[in-house]
């Protein structure tokens, strides 16, 4: 017995030895190559110049340094280089965003604290479509996906953005934007397999006509195997989804453009029932999920000073959960936005919108919603103006969103932001804003043994004070620092058998990020986040568990991401994450952890790429997050390896 253990350990070391040796061998080839010669671009013809694929890196910090908010943009290249296959894994690359994996298909994702399975203060949009669930106030990450190589960028704003984006943009906004169809012409396919995602693959085809019409269609599939429980037994958190979609753009460069896009998906996610109170593990069961959406967007540029966007979508979400909440809903959304600029005093954006949701929630043994089907809507309007003074050195943006929703009635969400440029390289900003998180269907209508919904449930409110500093030190170094003090009130408390709003909280924190390219072939990104959250109960509350809410998200987090471009077309990426410990009111805790992810990619011939990705390499397995609400038993994150082959024609 002892001997076999010893042997196993030895075998493990040898495996890693092989991988290391391989890495070293590849790198020795790579480093042996000469660095490409500098070409004088002015000697090239227009045709040649038009053929050069450019890196948009330099644009990003510039854009960010113009913004009076804590913004981070993850590009297509960043995502590809990290070798990530899911959106939650991509979000791990964003400084200031906490990502905790609960099991193979469930995540707790939020910026500035309040991480949970249904992190309800983080708004998420995919191509302008809100994927925040009105049933739970949160995002079912297992149902959110796109064809990853077609992502243009993921913009993450930390802090409230409700004055423009509306309710629930309380702690942050994640905005996933896919490429225009004209940029995804040709055939592309990838396939791979690994120890965690057993098999995955996808293909996309895109084309364009001379008349300004471009299209693409895609399909993808993955099968993510089950992981293990804390003590090592196999869990039931398998996850597989088949997804397909299209996008069509009409753009004749005449100032008018139209986009029509849609996706449909179907799959299965596995969970393990956690029996409440007793914290006993129940049975594992699969939940079929499916859905689809169709979105149309018309953009009219009247002049450089005036443009209009009209957007319409329908979204369908179906979830057949046999144990917890099973149901479906339709969302219909209409939005109009107009931007008008005139001189330095007026850079105005205004818009109106209406969103309607019709849901049906099935009754089961444990949970009843009363009524079981309900229609509700949100009507909204917003206006924001930005004024610049002193030759653009000082900019003031003021605006507010006004909403009327069927749950909590009228809500106003103003913000005031001031940005000042100091010299060519620095800008500092400050902001004060108010944002609300509106009640969900569950908080209003749930009937459950342990907790009841409350028709008088109010919106959760936040007043946030933020400060920041963007420092564009050199062409190669960009530093971004933000600090905040958040005051929450009317937060949800779970009183004996009913939801109320008897919780207040104060949060404070700092976030720092640096983007440094010491060499043309080497880019380093660092991120540090610290957040302290203190909750207090309002008079009459008995929700003592909530006093420990501050410990339920990691207080600090540090990430380093190194991206190397080695000659011989080898890419080598290494990410290190150090995440603080968390504890929940149920006496479970997750110790702090340090992990490393890596990817080695090579492209031996144009259009062909082979990559090897390793995730969580330091430990065989460890827990990352605990679920707090209607829960599934958490599982451990395991060390994993995967290999991907992709082909572009």
């Amino acid at each position: 017995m002892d001997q076999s253990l010893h042997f196993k350990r030895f075998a493990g070391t040898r495996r890693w030895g092989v991988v290391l040796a391989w890495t070293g061998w590849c790198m020795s080839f790579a480093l042996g190559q000469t660095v490409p010669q500098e070409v004088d671009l002015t000697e090239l013809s227009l045709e040649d110049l038009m053929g050069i694929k450019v890196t948009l890196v330099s644009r990003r910090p510039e854009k960010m340094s113009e913004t009076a908010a804590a913004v981070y943009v993850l590009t297509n290249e960043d995502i590809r280089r990290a070798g990530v296959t899911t959106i939650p894994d991509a979000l791990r690359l964003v400084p200031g965003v906490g990502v905790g994996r609960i099991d193979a298909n469930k995540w707790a994702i939020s910026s500035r604290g309040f991480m949970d399975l249904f992190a309800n203060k983080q708004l998420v949009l995919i191509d302008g479509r809100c994927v925040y669930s009105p049933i739970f106030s949160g995002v079912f990450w297992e149902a959110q996906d796109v064809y990853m190589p077609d992502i243009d960028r993921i913009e993450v704003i930390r802090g409230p953005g409700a004055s423009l984006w509306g309710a629930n943009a309380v702690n942050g906004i994640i905005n996933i934007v896919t490429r225009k169809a004209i940029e995804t012409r040709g055939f592309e396919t990838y396939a791979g397999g690994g120890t965690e995602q057993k098999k995955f693959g996808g293909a996309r085809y895109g084309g364009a006509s001379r008349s300004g019409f471009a299209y693409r269609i895609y399909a993808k599939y993955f099968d993510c195997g089950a992981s293990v429980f804390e003590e090592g037994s196999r869990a039931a958190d398998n996850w597989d989804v088949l997804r397909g979609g299209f996008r069509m753009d009409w753009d004749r460069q005449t100032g008018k453009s139209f986009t029509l896009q849609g996706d449909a998906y179907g799959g299965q996610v596995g969970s393990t029932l956690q029996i409440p109170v007793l914290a006993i593990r129940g049975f594992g069961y699969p939940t079929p999920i499916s859905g689809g959406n169709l979105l149309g967007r018309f953009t009219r540029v009247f002049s450089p000073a005036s443009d209009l966007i009209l957007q319409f979508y329908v979204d369908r979400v179906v979830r057949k959960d046999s144990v917890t909440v099973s149901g479906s809903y339709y969302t219909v959304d209409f939005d109009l936005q107009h931007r008008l600029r005139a001189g330095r005093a007026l850079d105005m954006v205004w818009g109106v919108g209406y969103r309607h949701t019709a849901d049906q929630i099935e009754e089961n043994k444990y949970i009843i919603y009363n009524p079981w089907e309900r229609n509700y809507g949100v009507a909204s309007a917003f206006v924001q103006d930005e004024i610049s003074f002193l030759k653009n050195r000082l900019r003031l943006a003021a605006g507010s969103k006004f909403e009327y929703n069927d749950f909590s009635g009228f809500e106003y969400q103003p913000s005031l932001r001031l940005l000042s440029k100091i010299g060519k390289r620095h800008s500092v900003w400050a902001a004060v804003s108010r944002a609300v998180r509106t009640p969900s269907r569950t908080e209003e209508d749930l009937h459950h043994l342990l907790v009841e919904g409350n028709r008088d449930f109010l919106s959760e409110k936040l007043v946030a004070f933020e400060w920041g500093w963007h420092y564009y030190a050199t062409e190669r170094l960009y530093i971004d620092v933000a600090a905040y003090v958040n005051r929450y009130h009317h937060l949800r408390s779970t009183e004996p058998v009913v939801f109320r709003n008897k919780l207040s909280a104060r949060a404070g924190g700092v976030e720092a990020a640096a983007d440094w390219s010491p060499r043309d072939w080497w880019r380093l990104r660092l991120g540090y986040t610290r957040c302290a959250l203190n909750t207090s109960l309002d008079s009459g509350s008995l929700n003592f568990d909530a006093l420990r809410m501050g410990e339920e998200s990691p207080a600090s987090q540090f990430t380093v991401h190194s991206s190397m471009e080695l000659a011989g077309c080898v890419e080598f990426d290494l990410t290190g994450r150090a995440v603080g410990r968390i504890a929940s009111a149920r006496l479970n805790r997750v110790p702090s952890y340090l992990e490393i992810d890596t990817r080695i990619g090579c492209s031996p011939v144009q259009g062909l790429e082979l990559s090897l990705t390793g995730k969580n390499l330091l430990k065989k397995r460890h827990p990352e997050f605990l679920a707090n609400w209607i829960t599934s038993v958490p599982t451990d994150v395991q060390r994993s390896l995967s290999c991907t082959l992709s082909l572009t024609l």
Partner: protein
Amino acid sequence: MKRFFPFLIIASLFFAAVPSRAQEIMRVSEYEVKAAFLFNFAKFVEWPAGATQDTSSCFCIGILGNDPFGPVLDRLIGSKSIKNKKILIRRFDDPGDLVFCHLLFISNSERPDWAAIQEKLRGASTLTVGEMEGFTDNRGMIQFVMIDDRVHFLINADAAENAGLKLSSKLLNLAVGVKRKSVKGNGA
């Protein structure tokens, strides 16, 4: 782990077999390429003889508003010549500061002042280049557009002709879109 060995072997062969694609991974930033475009545009445009308000013997390239090029522009084309004239790069914070330039790049930061800029440029033979949406629809002459991470451009031929500039047919052919009299301009 075992199932990865075939992958590793195949992967390793790639490294060994095709090691010399180094030249192809030339990484160039967007504004380096755009700077080279500015230089190239000047080659394919004819300015009216004697019509320039420019008394010096330099070819003036102006940047109006927030400069997205930074030191790249000076490094790439600062010491070069166009039409036997030495290039002079000038930067303007405000449309009020403008003096004559052969070629003027108008930064996106100047969107709100577009009307004032046009007023200022009236009658001058300045080739205007921009990258804001709708630039060529509103009497801007050349507009950069990014397609698939590559730099392309649109042309408003009417606006250039009105300013007395002659664009070569080669330039017009390479543009992804050309605006001509068939589409009614703003009557400038």
